[in-house]
């Protein structure tokens, strides 16, 4: 009985905080309406956003009232996971409603599109050339918010002890400053400045204001939604591609590292292990794609180089803009991109995937494992990784967590690709497309389309959701909800 009472108390906190985040999600869903003055002919769409937005706003305000009056109660990481599950599900489901009522998607397609937005994937079942501007803007806004994560946004917006529990459960746990709220506010400011500069740079390089806003949102969040069905290929402009590459890199480099670089600590930037991995990957990408794929496909060497560089950065950064179609590409091209997509971007950024730091740690462990065989049994080893100014030593526990994560990522990847294959898609295409979903990228070889079967869309929706939240928060959050739900709802005697 007492345990039930205790749980009830804790869930008032959890729902209260979730309510606060629902309010923010609701405001984000309502925010495209601010652009109505620019697109007066789209007024009929307003109801599609206002309905679900206001409903979630109301639910959030009501849930907030559950918050007990007393202050200063911290949340554990497990409780943070529950909040993450509750808030992300709300964002995905409520965020899908405008797409059903506004542009007539089926509920499955809408949920897919909404998940692709919030998780910063960028796979789309919409025909963007026929889509109203408000909906395009809405998709870009979901990517912008989903990239930073709700923890960062709420921590800067509000006081309250949500702190560590939430931000580490959302997979955005790395800190710039020794207080979670300050580092959240730095990340958000850094992000906003990047976005503003990105909009100006894209506009300066030749996009319209509307396209510039959407693409800056989608590039920095490493989302990849475009306003054209040919994506960046529509413009075919080297200047725009160069600007976009810079923005994608800013989105994918650990904020800790770009913060150090901005503060003039170039040594810290150049020394970072993740920057090394990123550099090597881009170089390999340009070489392999340039020599093995694009040289024979495109008329001029300049174009071949541009395509090789742009698609490499787009895949590694987990953004998913494209300048060409991959259908004519040979297997080597698909394979390289699939590999890059699985590895993904930097930790502590807006990117997805296994993350360069994890790959680096495991590769180094392998090296140590081999070297260890030739050394005395009691040799002390230091497995280190440079992160900005700091050299971090990793113990066995960290290596184990990393290995489990990589295994889970690959296991879900294989399983998901298997589902696609079972629906009759080509093996290579299934692997490519599911890697794109689980690492939240958005490059496509055509599996994702308006007429894809519902089962395929559901599998990919699940992949994007799990991949963005890095599995464990979802697993533990759902498990806790189930266990606690049994305690709270089922009537049973004191055990």
């Amino acid at each position: 009985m007492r345990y039930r009472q205790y749980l009830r108390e804790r869930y008032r906190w959890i729902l209260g905080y979730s309510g606060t985040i629902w309010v923010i999600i609701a405001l984000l869903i309502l925010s495209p309406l601010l652009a109505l003055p620019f697109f007066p002919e789209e007024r009929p769409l307003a109801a599609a956003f206002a309905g679900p937005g206001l409903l979630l706003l109301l639910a959030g305000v009501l849930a907030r009232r559950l918050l007990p009056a007393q202050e200063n109660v911290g949340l554990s990481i497990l409780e943070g996971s529950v909040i993450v599950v509750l808030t992300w599900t709300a964002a995905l489901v409520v965020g899908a409603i405008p797409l059903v009522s506004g542009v007539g998607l089926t509920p499955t397609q809408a949920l897919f599109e909404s998940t692709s937005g919030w998780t910063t994937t960028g796979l789309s079942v919409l025909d963007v050339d026929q889509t109203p501007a408000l909906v395009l803007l809405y998709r870009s806004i979901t990517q912008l918010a989903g990239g930073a994560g709700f923890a960062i946004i709420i921590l800067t917006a509000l006081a309250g002890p949500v702190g560590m529990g939430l931000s580490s459960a959302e997979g955005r746990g790395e800190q710039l400053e020794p207080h979670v709220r300050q580092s959240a506010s730095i990340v958000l400011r850094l992000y906003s400045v990047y976005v503003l500069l990105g909009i100006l740079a894209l506009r300066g390089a030749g996009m319209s204001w509307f396209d510039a806003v959407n693409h800056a949102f989608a590039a920095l969040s490493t989302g990849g939604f475009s306003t054209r069905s040919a994506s960046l290929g529509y413009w075919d402009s080297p200047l725009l591609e160069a600007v976009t590459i810079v923005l994608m890199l800013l989105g994918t480099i650990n904020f800790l590292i770009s913060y150090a670089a901005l503060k003039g600590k170039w040594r810290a930037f150049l020394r970072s292990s993740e920057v090394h991995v990123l550099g090597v990957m881009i170089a390999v990408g340009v070489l392999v794609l340039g020599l093995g794929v694009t040289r024979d496909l495109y008329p001029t060497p300049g174009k071949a180089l541009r395509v090789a560089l742009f698609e490499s950065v787009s895949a590694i950064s987990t953004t998913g803009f494209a300048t060409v179609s991959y259908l004519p590409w040979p297997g080597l091209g698909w394979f390289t991109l699939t590999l890059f997509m699985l590895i993904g971007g930097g930790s502590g950024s807006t990117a997805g995937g296994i993350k360069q730091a994890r790959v680096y740690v495991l590769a180094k462990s392998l090296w140590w494992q081999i070297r260890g065989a030739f050394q005395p049994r009691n040799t002390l080893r230091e497995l280190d990784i440079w992160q900005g100014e700091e050299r971090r030593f990793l113990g066995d526990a960290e290596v184990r967590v990393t290995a489990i994560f990589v295994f889970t990522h690959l296991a879900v990847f294989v399983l998901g690709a298997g589902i696609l294959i079972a629906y009759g898609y080509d093996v290579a295409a299934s692997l490519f497309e599911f890697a794109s979903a689980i690492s939240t990228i958005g490059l496509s070889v055509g599996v994702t389309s308006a007429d894809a079967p519902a089962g395929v869309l559901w599998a990919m929706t699940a992949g994007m959701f799990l991949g963005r939240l890095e599995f464990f928060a979802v697993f533990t959050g759902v498990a806790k909800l189930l266990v606690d739900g049994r305690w709270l709802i089922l009537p049973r005697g004191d055990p």
Partner: protein
Amino acid sequence: MSRYVIIAGCGRLGSLLAEELSRAGDSVVVIDKDESRFARLSSDFSGFRIHGDATELEVLRQAKADRADALIAATSLDNVNLMVAQVARVVFHVPVVVARVFNPAREAIYRRLGLRVVCPTKLSANSFLAALQEEE
């Protein structure tokens, strides 16, 4: 206003102080030689943990002692606390430095060196005496 506080020693006292300050919104960096001591910190603590010896200049530099508003030396050894506190004061010019000193005999000497000290032994002795007085 948020302060930047360094705490040397993550024992019962150090971890308690770290949690309280972190929850109140201060930026906190905790240093301890023994990594397993950080397990004492709950999820209320959102500061940094540095695994190292606070008597080493390099460790204090890594904790950014030069920008700290305050340093608390809360290890279990008087001499270590004294040394950390003096380094913080003289080398890094930390404005507020407080050291824990168990031995009441040393308290006066440390004071003379210009350090602010807290002596738990003396504090508890005073509390015991006060409790006795109340009984009478």
